[in-house]
């Protein structure tokens, strides 16, 4: 297939080249189980799924040292621990509704309350609740957190990423992420910027399977199966960026010196207060 370009919005700048890996969304796109079992059994299913989601979030929390991730995850954990979150779902289950349907509609009501708000802070909470909704739904389907094998340098493609899903990946070995939907103002965008993970959002649907791709999160382009010339140009750009990063790292750790090699003293707090020589 020939080279294809998809334009998106830059949510976190950067450049990466690697295989495009599509995250499966089948579990989330599947219709809810409508055949409800015995209410007591459905109740246990939901309780267990919430417990699995809770354990996943705690594990993520243990592995995320930064403040922003901690804040998002502790809020989600506090929500999940609150019996009021699933109260309506358990009531529906008692009336014979299946666990998945009950959970989804209980959360939908609460998501709508925040989604409709004019205040950005409260609107952003809708995304946290959607994150919880999906995590528990995946656990209900027995999947828990999806584990997709991701090769070194992979560019992750998904319809959207929730904060907890983003935090579940070890981005140090990955190229970046490309999202069909998503927003540059989301928590995921903030997390990506804080961690230096190139992120493009709003790309729309992208055809094709796990081919070679370039994620140009400077220019807002995802290039699939780049032509040799395009690939070479990007390879040179990546090489230059890498050399620059290495040079910066070398400079950081080399003692300061003048062009003639004279060492330069470090600027310290004492400089300002040295006794004046004019007296």
């Amino acid at each position: 297939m020939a080279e294809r370009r998809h334009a998106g919005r830059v949510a976190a700048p950067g450049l990466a080249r690697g295989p495009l890996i599509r995250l499966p969304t089948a579990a989330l796109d599947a219709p809810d189980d409508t055949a409800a079992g015995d209410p007591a059994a459905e109740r246990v299913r939901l309780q267990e799924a919430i417990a699995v989601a809770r354990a996943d979030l705690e594990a993520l929390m243990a592995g995320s040292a930064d403040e922003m991730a901690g804040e998002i995850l502790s809020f989600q954990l506090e929500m999940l621990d609150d019996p009021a979150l699933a109260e309506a779902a358990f009531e529906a289950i008692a009336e014979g509704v299946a666990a998945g349907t009950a959970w989804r509609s209980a959360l939908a009501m609460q998501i709508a309350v925040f989604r409709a708000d004019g205040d950005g802070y409260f609107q952003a909470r809708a995304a946290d609740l959607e994150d919880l909704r999906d995590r528990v739904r995946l656990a209900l389907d027995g999947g828990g957190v999806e584990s997709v094998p991701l090769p070194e340098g992979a560019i992750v493609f998904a319809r959207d990423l929730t904060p907890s899903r983003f935090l579940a990946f070890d981005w140090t070995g990955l190229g970046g992420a490309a999202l069909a939907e998503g927003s540059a103002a989301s928590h995921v965008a903030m997390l990506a910027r804080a961690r230096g993970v190139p992120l493009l959002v709003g790309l729309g649907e992208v055809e094709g399977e796990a081919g070679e791709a370039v994620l140009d999160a400077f220019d807002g382009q995802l290039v699939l199966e780049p032509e040799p010339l395009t690939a070479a140009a990007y390879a040179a750009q990546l090489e230059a960026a890498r050399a620059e990063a290495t040079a910066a790292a070398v400079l950081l750790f080399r003692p300061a010196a003048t062009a003639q090699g004279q060492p330069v003293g470090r600027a310290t707090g004492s400089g300002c207060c040295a006794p004046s020589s004019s007296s």
Partner: protein
Amino acid sequence: MAAAKATLTITHPTGLHARPAVKLTKLAKTFPATIRLRPLPDGAWIDAKSIVKVMALKLRTGTLIELEAEGEAADAAIAELSGLVTRDFDEDG
């Protein structure tokens, strides 16, 4: 049973958003007393230990709220929770 009350204004610039709400409910849960909260003048009482219910109030900065505790250590609960709210949840802004 001892009951304690306090009327407070939310002065945190972004209102009672996620992080302050987590601090409030976590602190409330450390007390055995029943603790309720409502927006004044005529909001409905909600459980101050429930993050879901506290967040659903979407309390903006400048909102007047009433806190009420009943039961064991009710006075201490109101004193500590009032302190947290008036200190802007120990945040810079």
